[in-house]
Each structure stands twice: as structure tokens, then as C-alpha cells.
């Protein structure tokens, strides 16, 4: 969790700021307004506990996916991930999770979490608007199914003055969906120049069930983060 008054942003990662003893995270991509607040709650033995709540408004983004370049059907409508023949209704999702952490960056920091989300307004969303791609399908399933259960864990450790790594595991359970689960594992190597600049790179392995069946994808990851 960021210290009070500290800010952090990545080329890809969201804008985060430490405030009120907790952390606010805001998506900087305007098409998918999204804000979350994480704050510490009581300790349990060696575990520091926290809670996080998030609200997402996906409608603009999903409509944008129907015609990213403003083209019409057959022009061709390049980069469209959702057919423009469908109506995307107004929708909203709420997500809450409990987080537990123990250890430290030098000895190894373990974080586990579990949460549940609900999607509102998706009853009029045609199931054929799903984006059946890794990362997209699991995250937008909440609007098709009305519910999403997520759990996971993370282990991170600094092994040299400027070098650390993170191993992350996420599990998505999508009750009622044609694709019912997704597992994501991420490994990141992080180079921290100072508290103002950080470079991270690694991979993400995503295995999941989609409407067409199961598939795994291995994807490279890279991001640059700035803090102040």
C-alpha cells in the first residue's frame, strides 16, 4: 500500500495515490471509468489485513470496442472486437475483496486475497458480445453472468538492492458462463532505480475456458512506472 501523499503511475498501470491511510487507484483510460479504494483493517496474528472495493463502468469501453476507428460494418470495421450489430446497455459492477499480507520485501512478502463481484444491467447484454480472448473474457464475464468470484495470491521478494521479483496467481470463477474458469499466473522481474522509477518485465500465463473450449496463452509483459 502506498504511503500517504505518495503517487505512482505506469505507462500501462493505473494511477495510484496514498490517501487517508489507504490507497486509491484510478484508471487513467477514460473509456472505462474505474476507481478502487484499498485500506488496512485489523491484524490477525502475523497477517496484516486490508479490504478493497472497486466500481467499474464498462459501457463506454464495450461500445468503443464495436468500432474503435469509427468505421461501419464491412468497411471493414477494423479492430472491432464486438460486432456493431449488438446493443451495449448501461452497466456497472461492484467488487469487494479481503486481502491478507505477511512478511516483508526483504524476507519475502506473501499476499493472499479473495473477493466477489456483482454486475448490474447486463440482462440485456447479448451473450454474443463476449470478447473471447485471454484477460478480456474473464474480466467482462461479470456483466454476462452477474457474478464473479476471484481469489489468488502473490509472493514478492527483493533479492538484490535494486532487483526484486513477483510471482502472482489469480483464479477467476465465472458461475453460469460458457467459460467457467480462468487461471492466471504472472512472473515479473522488477528493476527499481529509485522511488521515482521502476521497470518491470516478465510473462503472464493464462489458462481458461472460453465459449469454444479451453486454451492457454503465454504472454510477455513489460511496464514502466513513475512515482513521486
Amino acid at each position, binding site marked *: 500500500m502506498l504511503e500517504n501523499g505518495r503517487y505512482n503511475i*505506469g505507462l*500501462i*498501470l*493505473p494511477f495510484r495515490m496514498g490517501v487517508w491511510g489507504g490507497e486509491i487507484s484510478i*484508471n*487513467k*483510460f477514460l473509456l*472505462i471509468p*474505474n476507481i*478502487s479504494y484499498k485500506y488496512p483493517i485489523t491484524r490477525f496474528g502475523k497477517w496484516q489485513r486490508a479490504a478493497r472495493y*472497486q466500481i*467499474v463502468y*464498462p459501457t463506454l469501453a464495450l461500445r468503443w*470496442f*464495436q468500432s474503435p476507428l469509427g468505421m461501419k*460494418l*464491412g468497411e*471493414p*470495421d*477494423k*479492430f*472491432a*472486437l*464486438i*460486432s*456493431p*450489430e449488438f446493443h451495449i446497455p448501461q452497466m456497472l*459492477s461492484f*467488487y469487494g*475483496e479481503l486481502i491478507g499480507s505477511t512478511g516483508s520485501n526483504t524476507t519475502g512478502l506473501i499476499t493472499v*486475497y479473495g*473477493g466477489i*463481484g456483482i*454486475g448490474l444491467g447486463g440482462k440485456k447484454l447479448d451473450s*454474443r458480445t463476449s*470478447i*473471447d*480472448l*485471454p*484477460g*478480456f473474457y*474473464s*474480466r467482462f464475464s*461479470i456483466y454476462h453472468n452477474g457474478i*464473479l468470484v*476471484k481469489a489468488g495470491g502473490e509472493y514478492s521478494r527483493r533479492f538484490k538492492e535494486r532487483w526484486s521479483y513477483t510471482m502472482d496467481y489469480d483464479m*477467476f470463477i465465472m458461475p453460469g458462463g460458457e467459460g467457467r474458469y480462468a487461471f*492466471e499466473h504472472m512472473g515479473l522481474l522488477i528493476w527499481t532505480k529509485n522511488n521515482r522509477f521502476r521497470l518491470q518485465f516478465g510473462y*503472464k500465463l493464462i489458462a481458461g475456458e472460453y*465459449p*469454444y*473450449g479451453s*486454451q*492457454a*496463452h*503465454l*504472454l*510477455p*509483459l*513489460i511496464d514502466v512506472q513513475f512515482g513521486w
Partner: protein
Amino acid sequence: MVKHLIKNISLIYLGLMLYSCDPLVNEFNDVENAVMYRAKSIAEAGARDTVKVMTWNIRFGVARLSFFGDGCGDRVILKKSEVYEGLEGLAAKIKLENPDILLLQEVDVQSKKTGYIDQAQWFLDNTDFNYGAYGSMWESQVILADGLGRVNTGNLILSKWELVNAERYQLALRGDQDGLTQYFYLRRNVIKAKVNMPGKPFYAVNTHLTAFATDDTKQKHIDGFKSILDGLLAEGKGFVAGGDLNEIPPNALKLDYCLEDQCESESYHSEGKYEHKEGAYFAPEITWLSPLYKTYRPAISLNEYGTYETKHFTHSPDDKLTLDRKLDYLWTNTKWLEGKTHQEATTLSDHIPVSAKWVVK
């Protein structure tokens, strides 16, 4: 929703553009094995003196629904129930005609636009065929246009006898497209398989040639298809071949379909406009099928076609039920009997089947 929605989606999307376990688009080798299928239950067939062969472009089982990609329609992702209804109609006709070898084009295998149904397996489990050999002409994890999503569509040989040594032969890519479009576009092919009819094996060859190329790609495709038949001829093998050649016979009377095929928003041949619609103007290529006619036996001869042209039309676009051109053919290096153009099936696809009985030597 979930932790860092945008963080993860953005990272993953960036990654997807760079690399994944499977290629985004299957580019295929020049020659590779076909994908083999078999029915849930096998009913072994004996040898015959004549083999009934049929070719049919089934428009991925959506009958005459308003699909955007091959005409003037406005729909992209069809309902699964609509596709099953279309498949049921096709299967009923196939069972009625009862061919021994069926050459299908535009068969979808787990494509988003047709509800991810594996149509190759569906046909095997819902008709009297036992074996199948499939060669995709368009296989991509995602087509980044029009919301098409995952696509896998291609040619399928169905047989009552076992198929072996089935191979997919890559044809030339369209030469009139930019590199990015070409990468995501169709990769036409020819499927060849040995049919293990007891004591009398023969070959089945299936293809679907380019429809919209404006350069000499179609000529290359016809040459590629013919070269495979020439190879079988040189080896002394008997074959049945066919498919949707997207070409009209050399003696066709009408060569320009621009007005018939134009959509509401289009205008061809109006005052000052002499541009032709892609795939609708056949005059420059009218002789391209002549070498096939000269070398091999068609199920419908040129004489028969010339005498009864309208009775042998096999295609009309979109929901227009009046067939207006012949694009679908059967060929052999031996002899056909009872060649037939099934114009009664015009509601089941935008193409209709052509069948004939092949005389086994």
C-alpha cells in the same frame, strides 16, 4: 469488477499483440496433413461399381440469413439456434441424396460467427458418413474487424469409406491486398485424400477458390487445383474432384453481375462509373476454366450447360433465391453418370449442390 482491470487488460492486450503460445493466425505450410475426423459410430461400407459424389458450398450452415461477409447483409454473429436450424436443413438434403463422397466448402469449425459449433463433427454425427478430412482456409484466434472474433472455416471431404493420406495444399495468397490485410485474410487450399474403398481405392479432391481477387490470383488457384489433378492423372489414379471454383463456364452467356450483386449503398455502371464490383465481373477470366474442361470430364458437360444454362446455375447471393450463375463443379479423369444440379435446394445455402455418379474402373 476485479483488481486493476485496466492494468491487466492493457498488459495482456499488449502481450497478445506480441506473442502467445499459438500464432494469432495459422499461416499453414505449403503442404500439410489435413485434420482427420470420424463419426461417433462407424457403419462400414462395401465396395461399389458406381460412387455417388456431391459438392456443396454450405455457407457455414446459415442458409440464406443476412450475413454481412458475402453479400449485403448486416449480421455478423449468428445465433447458435439459427445455425443448428441451417445445419439440420443441409443434413436432411444430404440424407435424401445419400452421396458416398461429399465435398463441402465453407464449413465452420468452432467459429464465433456460428456459435463455435464444430460443423465437421456435427455432419459426421448427423448424416451417414463415417470419415472426414478437413483443411482450413481461414484460421485465426481473432479477426480484428467487424467483431468476427475467432474464425476457422474451410473445406471438408466426407466419405463412407476410410480416408487416408489426406493432405492440405496451400494455394497462392491474394496478390491485390496489402500485407496486413493479407495476413488476416483467407488462405485458399486444395484437400486431397485417398478413399479406401475395399479393393478399389481412389482419390477425392476438394477446393474453394478465391471469389474476390481482382488480379490473376484466381488463375493461379485454378492452375494449382489442376496441377494436383494432373499429378493424380500422371500416377494413373482415379479421382473425383470438385468444389466452388468461383468461376463461370467458358460458354456462359452473362459475364457481368455487378448490378445483380450491388448493395443498396453501392452504384456500378451508372453514368460516368465503370468500375466493377469485386467478384462480379467475369469477362477477363472467361476462358480460365477451359484447360480443366479440355483435360477432365465435368459432371455437367459444356454442351449440357450451353443448352440448358439456367437449369445448371448453382449460386445466387444473399437471400436472392433465383439462381443466376454456375460456380460449382465436379470433375474426374474417368466417367460420370447422371450429373445433376439440385436447384430445389436453393433455400439451404447461397450455393446449391451438384451431384453425379462416378463409374469406378
